[in-house]
C-alpha cells in the first residue's frame, strides 16, 4: 500500500511540474545585476511597506511582533555569545608557524566581512569568507575546518561581529566570468529542486513573512546579513554552508558539498542583491 502512495505523489509531482513549467517567453536577456538588485529591493519594500530597508537583515523577526519580542529577549544575552568569544580567541591565536589569520586578510581581517564573497579574477571563481579562512589555514600548514561545524562558525562569527553595521559591498568586476557566476547563482536561487519541488524563491520570495508550521519564513532580502546564526532548532551555531545544505535536504534534494561552485555563486548572488544592507552577524534565529 505504501509504495502506491509514493507512486501517487510522484505522479502528482510530475503533473505539478508540467503545469508550473509552462515557460513564458523571455528575451535572452544578458544579466543586468544593478537592475536585478533594484528590482529585488523594490519587490520586498513594496511587499512589506512597514519594514525599514535595513530591518530586513533581522529576517523573521522583522515580520512578526510576537517573534520580535522573543528576539529582543534573546538579544539581551544572546546564545551565540560563547561562539563569538571562542572565535575571537581562535582568531588571535597564532598557527604553529607563528603566522595568524590576520596575515591572510586585508586590514588584519577586522571589519572586512561585508566585502565577502568576492570574485577572484586569478582563479576566475567566487571566493567566500569560509573558503578564504580554510585556504589561509592550509597555506599555513594547518588542517582545514569542517564548513558546517562550530570552529568555522566561531571564526566567521567574530569576523562578522567586527563588521557589524557596515553595509554589504559586493562587487562584480567587468569580467564575463564574474557575470556568469552571478547568473549561475541567480539560476540556482530560482530553480526548483527536491521531491517537494521547491526553489529558494518558493519559500523566501513568494512566501517570505508567512508561516511554515511554527517558523516565519525570512524574506530573501538581507537573508545572509546575520550569518553565521545560532539556531534554537540546531541548539548551536550554523555557517552559511550548513544553512544551504540543510535547506536542500529539507526539501528532499540531495545537498551538494559545502563550498561547491553552485553554493559559492548562490552566496555571491544573494549577497550582491542585498548590497547596502548592514551586516548584523552573528545572529540568533528560531
Amino acid at each position, binding site marked *: 500500500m505504501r509504495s502506491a502512495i509514493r*507512486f501517487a505523489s510522484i505522479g502528482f509531482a*510530475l503533473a505539478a511540474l508540467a503545469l508550473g513549467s509552462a515557460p513564458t517567453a523571455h528575451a535572452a536577456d544578458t544579466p543586468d545585476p544593478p537592475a536585478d538588485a533594484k528590482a529585488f529591493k523594490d519587490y520586498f519594500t513594496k511587499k512589506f511597506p512597514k519594514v525599514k530597508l535595513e530591518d530586513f537583515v533581522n529576517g523573521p523577526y522583522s515580520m512578526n511582533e510576537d517573534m520580535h519580542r522573543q528576539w529582543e529577549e534573546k538579544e539581551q544575552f544572546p546564545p551565540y555569545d560563547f561562539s563569538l568569544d571562542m572565535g575571537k580567541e581562535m582568531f588571535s591565536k597564532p598557527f604553529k608557524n607563528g603566522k595568524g589569520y590576520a596575515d591572510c586578510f586585508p586590514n588584519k581581517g577586522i571589519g572586512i566581512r561585508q566585502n565577502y564573497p568576492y570574485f577572484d579574477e586569478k582563479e576566475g571563481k567566487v571566493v567566500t569568507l569560509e573558503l578564504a579562512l580554510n585556504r589561509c589555514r592550509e597555506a599555513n600548514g594547518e588542517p582545514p575546518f569542517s564548513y558546517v561545524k562550530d570552529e568555522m562558525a566561531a571564526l566567521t562569527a567574530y569576523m562578522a561581529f567586527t563588521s557589524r553595521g557596515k553595509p554589504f559591498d559586493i562587487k562584480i568586476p567587468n569580467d564575463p566570468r564574474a557575470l556568469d557566476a552571478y547568473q549561475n547563482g541567480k539560476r540556482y536561487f530560482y530553480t526548483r*529542486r527536491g521531491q517537494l519541488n521547491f526553489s529558494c524563491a518558493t519559500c523566501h520570495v513568494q512566501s517570505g513573512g508567512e508561516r511554515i508550521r511554527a517558523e516565519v519564513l525570512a524574506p530573501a532580502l538581507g537573508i545572509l546579513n546575520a550569518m553565521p546564526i545560532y539556531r534554537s532548532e540546531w541548539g548551536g551555531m550554523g555557517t552559511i554552508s550548513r544553512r544551504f545544505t540543510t535547506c536542500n535536504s529539507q526539501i528532499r534534494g540531495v545537498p551538494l558539498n559545502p563550498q561547491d561552485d553552485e553554493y559559492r555563486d548562490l552566496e555571491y548572488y544573494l549577497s550582491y542583491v542585498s548590497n547596502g544592507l548592514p551586516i548584523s552577524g552573528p545572529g540568533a534565529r528560531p
Partner: protein
Amino acid sequence: MRGNMRISTLSLALTLLIAGATSSLTAGSEADFKAAYAAAEAANKEAAALRNQWTTTAAALAAAKKAADSGDFDQAVASSKEAEALAKASIFQATSEKEAWKALEIR
C-alpha cells in the same frame, strides 16, 4: 526498459504510475531485482550528473537492497521500480527547470 523521453509530461507521469502498479504484482526473482536495481541506479547517476538527485531516491534504493538481502524479491523489485521512477522524475525536474526558473524571477 529504456524510458522514452519524448512523450509529453502528463502521459509520462501516467505510464510510470501504471508501470509501477502492474509490475509489483508479478512475482519478482533475483534476476528481476538485479535488472530493476541497475536501471534505477543508472537513472540516479544521470540525476547526479545533472546535480539534482532526490534524497527519497536514495532511500528507495536502500530499501530495495535491504529487501533483496532478506530475500524478499517482490518488495526489492517494487522498491527498485519506485527508485527508478523517482530518479526519472528528478531528471525531468532538472531538464524542465533549465528554462522554467525564469518564470519566478523578480523583474
